[in-house]
Structures are given as C-alpha cells and as structure tokens.
C-alpha cells in the first residue's frame, strides 16, 4: 500500500462492530470500583477530615489519601500540584498539600465492591474547610494581593518577551496603527469518551494502568515519580481512545489509580480496580483551552508594509501550570502572525488564578495568537482599503525572513504558497455566490432583508513537534520475519507507542512500514501504546506524529534491513529519531530557533448572518494546507474537516461558564458542541504538497492547522457582511446583536 493512497483504517472493523474496547469496556468481572472524590473547593484550607464513616460503610474495601502517595506532587513541566489534598502527606512534596486551589483537586479515592457502594461511602466523608480569599481571574490575580502559590511572591509566574528592532520608532514610522484588545475564551475538549482507567499489579509485579491518554511514557514517568519507584516498575497501556484533542495529555486518573492499585497490593488484595468519570466529573475534572486577554497594536505604511507590532498577552493558567508555560510560548510566537515584522515588542505572561487550569488543546496557543494577528491584519486591510490577501502577500514570511525570533525559519516556508492557492480558489474580487436563505428556527422563516452575506480570510502557521529546546525524539521497533533462504521478509511486526486518538496514526504507520518494506498492508502487525513493548514515542500532540513517528519507523526499517542483509532471522530494527535541536528563546530579546518544522494554512470563509436575530450560518470554508506530503489523503481530509468543526464550536457556540473558580455548565446539554446541522455546510480542502526537507516522504503535520485561522476568518466575514468587528467570541446570537446594536445597524 503506497503512501499517498487511501487504505481502510486498521481499527475500522473493531470500531464498527463494537469490538473496540475503550477504557470503560474491559473491566474484569471481579474488579473493585473506585470513586475519586474532588475537594469541591476552589480555594480553602483543609482543617480536618474524618473518614471513619466512609470506611465503615458497606462494601468499602479501602480509602486512599495523601498519606498513600510517597511523593505527593504532579506536573508535566512543573511540580506544582499535589496528587491529593490532605493533612497527612509524607512531606516529600514541593507544594503544600493542605490547601485546595481548584474545585477538582483530588481528596480521597474510595474503593468498594460496587460503584454504588463506593458512591454511597463517598458521601459520608466528613471534612471541615477554612475558606480562603479568591483570585479567580487575571484581573484579580494581577495585583498579587492573594497568592495562588504562596511560595512565590507573584502569581505572574512565567514571562516571555520579544524585543526586535525598535517598536517605538516602528510605530512612529507607521501611517496607520490598528489597536485592539481581544478576549479569548475557554474551550472544553468534549471528547465523547470520558476518562476511565483500570489498574492492577501485573504478574511481573508492575503497577499497571490501562486507560486512554496521549503519551504512555509520560504517564509512566509521572506515576513513577509519585510512587517514588523506577519507571520499570510501572506499566501503562492504552485501550481504544475516544478522542483526546490535548485534553488527555495531562493526568486524570493515571496517578491516583496507580496509587490505589499499589495500596490494594500492599493490603494483599489481588484484584483490579476500575474508575470511570461521569461527564460532569470529566468537564469539571480536566483542564481547558486557556482563556486569555491580548492587547495589540499593529503599525503599517500606507502601502501596507508592517512597521511594528506590539502586544501584551495575559494567559490565565488557572490553579496549576499543566502545560501553560509551553502554551504561552506558542501564543507568544504566533501573536505577530506569519509576517515580516521589522520592529516588535511582545510581552507575554502566564498567571496563576484560582480557576480551572488551562492546558493543551489542539492548536496549543496558536488559535489564540492567530485570532489576534489575523484580526489585526483584517482590520488593517479594511482601514487601508486593500485586498486582505494582497496585504498578507506583501508581508508574508519567506525562506529569507529572519522571523520574529530573529533566527530564520526552517527551510520550506509556505506562507506565500498557501495565500496564492487560497486566492486562486477564492478570489477576493469575486462576487459571493448566492447561498440559500436560512433560518435556524423552521417556524420563523428568515426575512430576506435581514440576511447579509460576507467573506473573510485568514492565514497562519503552526509548529510541528515540540519546541523551545525540548529534547524531541521518537522511537520505533520493527521485526522482519521470513525464512533464512527468502530474499525478502514476508511479515513485519511494528512496536510503537504512538497514541491512536482517532487521527489514524496506527493506520498511517502501518502503511508507511508496508510501503517502506514493500509488503502489503495486511502483512504488517502493529503492537501499540504499551510501555512494556514499545519505546518512547512522545505525545500525540503538536501535529507531530506523522513527522516524528514516520521518521522513526523509516529509521527502524532501515536498521532491520541491515540486520536482514546480515542474515539475521528474525531481523530486528530499533531507531530513535531526533529532529534538529531547537532553542529556548533569549530572555531579553526573544532570539532563538524555537521550532524545526511548520505547517502553513490559509482559509476563506463565506457566511450569512441574520441581523435581526444574530444567528450566523457558515456557508462554505475553503481550507488550504501545505502538508508536505499527504500520506493518507482521506484521513488527512478527516483531520481538516474535524478540526474545522471543533473550531466552529469554539468560534460560534461553545461557552464554558466559570464563576469564582467553579464551572457552571458541566454538561453536554449546557455546553453546546456542534452537530451536523451546525457545522459549515461545505468544507473544501485544498492540499498542497511542497515537501518538507526532513519529513518522511516530505510530510509535515496537519491536525491542528485548520483550527488556527478559523475564528479570525469568521469574524472578518462577519465584518464583511454586517460591518462590525467583534474582538471576542463565541459569536452567540446575543453577542452579535449586542454589537449590531452598538454599531446601530
């Protein structure tokens, strides 16, 4: 099966027959059931906790608390969160454990014979809390009067800056200056499979956790850290994963369930333990796309050449860092857009608040940055009366650009390519086609005079792979099978940890191996996502797996070919792919090479707005992507269409309400993700294949790319239709009406 052609997914039959087992499906018959009790306290000190009634409750086997975690701390990049809040921790934690800073901090795991018994016993926990003052948003946290982590003197715990040229002089040289303050909202991942895990002690005495996540080796590392054991004593494997989108990158049940299994083992109870979250527990209990406030200025000459960019970014990290420092980096890089900017001052800050942590979510800061950069460019075009794509073409980054971090860009910059292709497909001068009239409510037919059509554009770029000097790598193992006298292997086994979150990576890797070895698809057997069989692949994130895992399997095949040629039967090949090293940015100037590869995208959005009701319908999206090489075109289009649907929800309907550190709408009936009737009526994917010099067969990555530019393209189309700029979203009917009213349209 050649790369560049469409094969059936390796997991398709299991998924259409109901045989695919997600983490809540493969629960052993004799498993114990666990409930994770949240503190339900956005900021309070635990004064006392009495578990005696819980322990005495029928069916209860044990309770697990801070006392059971050898090193009671967690964090993907900073250890700033206790695994459990409690009064009796071991003292080996870098963060005080008696204070709850988030409503979903964990307090106790109750283990019982049945789920109903565990639930009943959970309700009997007797706690006394001393309420503490709240700094629940950026505005209240900025003053540092209330500290989220009192160990430090400020809530503003991570800052980045760019100083390029002279932004003051650059602004003075400008003929026009565009200024705006942008409010970026939270977003809930709303993967349909909520968190669940089963844990046990395996036959080799390893603490074993089966769950769904994005990176088995990271899960293992975090568990081993908390348990203070060697990583070899922990095994993590993934069941089928029902969506992740960044929301399963941080730990949910991994550590607490490992601690629970260990405690059961120590009590001599040789049974598995299972826990599954409800939808409400899932929404309350995991991080969100960050909310942020960005104030930006863009200076340009009357010919549309950018003279300077200034930006102040405030990223609400919530109570714990999660990956906020990294997300901030991406937002920081993208806030000036995909353009040549001779002078820049950008100050970006992540700030702790007593609120839900922000963390990874498809795009990882990119959608927030691009909303600012592209809104500014669209406003500039309109102010100058210029074609918005011509304006972008004049300023587009190229292979010769120094970039915002003054270090040049990885070869193969595709900004002008995607702009050209987008303009060719959707010329800005072209009349909008007539789309059918619409009304969201069938009994209220739209009034034709209230319908306005508009078109908007946006352009962007997004890194592929980990950034800022992270030791990026991906491992693969293959084994060739065949007889000693055979010239070629007849069967290959592939061992890889890449997480199949739905994107199709297991299919793509199988296809790549089959093609590289010259076998058919069915002759490759994949064994995936188990720390006991596969090397460290890194995470299913940053649009990195096609590039990174693709290169790793190519390397492993090459190694196995050598062994095969030397006569080894079976012939094994192991490879650890490492891309060019990236750099952390200079703390003063922001200079450095943060990334080794980018994907490039441009979008045109046509929409209709009913100015009487404020409803928006997106009629067509043209999404242009330079992907390097489409390994599996049909799955690639699936990524584009899926990302646009999620970005559509982000832009138009998804509104997470958080008040005083508490999520007010943790249900899918209250938090509205798009259905088939809501998504754009038509999505046209335009795939460009300018090979990346380092990508496998030239492939870059695509999974996040369509997300980046969608919101600003929609707001530009809304301006085109109705003459209003909206600097925040979701663009709910009430928000649209409010803006229309103040603009008197």
């Amino acid at each position, binding site marked *: 099966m050649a790369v560049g052609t469409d094969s059936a997914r390796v997991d398709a039959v299991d998924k*259409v027959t109901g045989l695919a087992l997600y983490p809540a499906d493969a629960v052993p018959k004799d498993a114990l059931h666990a409930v994770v009790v949240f503190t339900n306290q956005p900021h309070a000190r635990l004064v006392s906790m009495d578990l005696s009634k819980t322990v005495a409750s029928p069916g209860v086997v044990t309770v697990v608390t801070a006392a059971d975690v050898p090193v009671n701390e967690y964090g993907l990049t900073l250890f700033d969160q206790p695994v459990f809040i409690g009064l009796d921790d071991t003292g080996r934690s870098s963060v005080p454990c008696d204070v709850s800073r988030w409503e979903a901090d964990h307090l106790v795991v109750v283990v019982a014979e049945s789920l109903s018994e565990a639930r009943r016993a959970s309700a009997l926990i007797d706690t006394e809390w001393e309420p503490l003052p709240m700094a629940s948003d950026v505005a209240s946290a900025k003053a540092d009067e209330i500290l989220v982590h009192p160990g430090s003197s400020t809530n503003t715990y991570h800052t980045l800056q760019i100083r390029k040229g002279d932004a003051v002089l650059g602004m003075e040289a400008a003929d026009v200056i565009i200024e705006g303050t942008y409010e970026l909202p939270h977003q809930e991942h709303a993967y349909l499979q909520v968190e669940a895990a089963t844990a046990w002690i395996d036959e080799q005495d390893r603490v074993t956790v089966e769950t769904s996540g994005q990176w088995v080796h990271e899960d293992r590392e975090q568990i081993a850290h908390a348990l203070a054991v060697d990583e070899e004593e922990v095994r993590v494997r993934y069941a089928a994963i029902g969506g992740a989108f960044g929301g399963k990158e941080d730990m949910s049940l991994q550590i607490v369930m490992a601690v629970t299994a260990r405690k059961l083992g120590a009590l001599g109870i040789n049974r598995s333990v299972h826990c599954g979250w409800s939808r409400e527990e899932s929404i309350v209990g995991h991080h969100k796309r960050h909310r942020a406030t960005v104030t930006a200025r863009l200076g340009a000459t009357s010919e549309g050449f950018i003279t300077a960019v200034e930006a102040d970014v405030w990223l609400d990290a919530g109570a714990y860092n999660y990956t906020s420092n990294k997300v901030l980096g991406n937002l920081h890089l993208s806030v000036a857009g995909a353009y040549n900017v001779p002078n820049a001052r950008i100050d970006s800050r992540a700030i702790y608040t007593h609120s839900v942590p922000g963390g990874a979510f498809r795009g990882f800061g990119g959608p927030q940055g691009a909303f600012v950069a592209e809104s500014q460019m669209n406003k500039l075009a309109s102010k100058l009366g210029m074609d918005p794509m011509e304006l972008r073409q004049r300023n587009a980054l190229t292979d010769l650009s120094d970039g915002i971090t003054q270090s040049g860009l990885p070869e193969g910059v595709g900004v002008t390519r995607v702009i050209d292709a987008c303009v060719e497909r959707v010329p800005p001068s072209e009349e909008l086609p007539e789309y059918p009239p619409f009304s969201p409510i069938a009994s209220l037919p739209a009034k034709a005079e209230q319908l306005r059509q508009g078109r908007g554009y946006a352009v962007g770029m997004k890194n592929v792979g980990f950034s800022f000097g992270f030791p990026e790598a991906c491992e693969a193992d293959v084994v060739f099978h065949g007889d000693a006298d055979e010239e070629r292997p007849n069967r290959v086994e592939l061992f890889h940890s890449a997480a199949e979150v739905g994107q199709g990576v297991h299919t793509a890797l199988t296809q790549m191996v089959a093609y590289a070895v010259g076998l058919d698809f069915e002759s490759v057997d994949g064994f995936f996502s188990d720390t006991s069989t596969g090397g460290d692949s890194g995470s299913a994130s940053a649009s990195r797996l096609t590039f990174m895992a693709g290169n790793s399997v190519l390397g492993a095949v090459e190694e196995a070919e050598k062994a095969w040629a030397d006569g080894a039967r079976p012939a094994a090949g192991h490879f650890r792919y490492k891309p060019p090293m990236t750099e952390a940015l200079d703390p003063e100037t922001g200079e450095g090479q943060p990334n080794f590869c980018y994907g490039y995208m441009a979008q045109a959005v046509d929409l209709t707005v009913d100015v009487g009701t404020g409803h928006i319908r997106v009629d067509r999206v043209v999404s242009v992507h330079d992907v390097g090489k489409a390994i599996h075109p049909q799955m690639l289009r699936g990524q584009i269409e899926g990302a646009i649907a999620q970005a559509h929800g982000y832009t138009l309907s998804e509104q997470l309400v958080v008040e005083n550190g508490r999520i007010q709408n943790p249900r899918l009936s209250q938090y509205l*993700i798009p259905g*088939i009737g809501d998504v754009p009526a038509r999505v046209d994917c335009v795939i460009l294949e300018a090979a990346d010099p380092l990508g496998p067969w030239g492939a870059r990555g695509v999974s996040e790319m369509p997300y980046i530019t969608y919101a600003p393209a929609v707001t530009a189309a809304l301006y085109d239709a109705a003459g209003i700029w909206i600097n925040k979203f979701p663009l709910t009917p009430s928000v649209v009406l409010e803006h229309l009213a103040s603009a008197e349209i």
Partner: protein
Amino acid sequence: MNAEESYEIRLKVNGRTQHVTAPARRLLSDALRGELGLTGTHVGCEHGVCGCCTVLVDGAPVRSCLTFAVAVQDKDIRTVEGLAAGDGELHPVQEAFKECHGLQCGFCTPGFLMTACALIEQNNDPTEQEITEAIAGNLCRCTGYQNIRAAVRRAAEITRSDKR
C-alpha cells in the same frame, strides 16, 4: 416496585432472550454494558444529548441512557453487536462507515450506525435532507460529519444494490 430491590428482567437483545437481575431503575445502557457485557453501546453524556448510546427498540432508535431496562422487556432490542451477520459479514452501514472513513476515534460510531440503520431500513433512498435530519441528534467530536454523511449515503446505496 422498590428502587433498591432487584428484579428479574427479560431482555431480548440481538435475537436472544436473556435474564438480568437488577434494580427497577437500571438503565438499559447499564444493563447492556454491565449485565450483558455488550460494551459496544457507549455512554458519552448520560442524559440524552450525544446519541452514543443509541440502540434500536422494535426498529426505532432509542437512547438507552434514558430508558429503563424494565420498560423494554420482551421488545426487540438491537445493538451494534447485532448488526453484522453471523458469519461476520458486515452490515451495509458498517461496510459504508469503514469504506468512507465515517469514524475517527470511533466512540460515537455505534450510535451513528444504529441511527443510520433505522433510517435505511425504512428508506433506502434518503435525500440529503433526510440524512441530515436522521443523524442531527447524534454528536461526533472528531469527524466534522462530512464522512459520516457520505457513509450514510453509501450505506443506502449498498442496500439498494443488495436488494437488486
């Protein structure tokens, strides 16, 4: 009936009658998944919004998370496990979702398959509008629905050609 007390409930699932001992308020979704081990029926929201838990009851799509098991005693219940033929041959909706990549993570898929199956068994030549309306109550967070729509169209096509 008493909420705590257990009762014997007769469930006819995929053509087989089975007995389940459960409290009166046992949801059909829990009975299928827990008591009968039919975990192909997924639970995504627990209150009727996502459609992941859709099964067919006497041929009509029903949200098993909103249905008490006792309420469907002796009715014909069909789950995703009952779609393929005994020899493993895929049902046209399964074949079509596979062929058209109507799935990514696959968590929503059983619900879509059952909903599409009900549509196509009633009407094997649905219009685009009828397809949209039939699946408008099922959520998918991964695909953007384009391939799901194509898969339903394709399933109807396979069904029509099978009939010929």
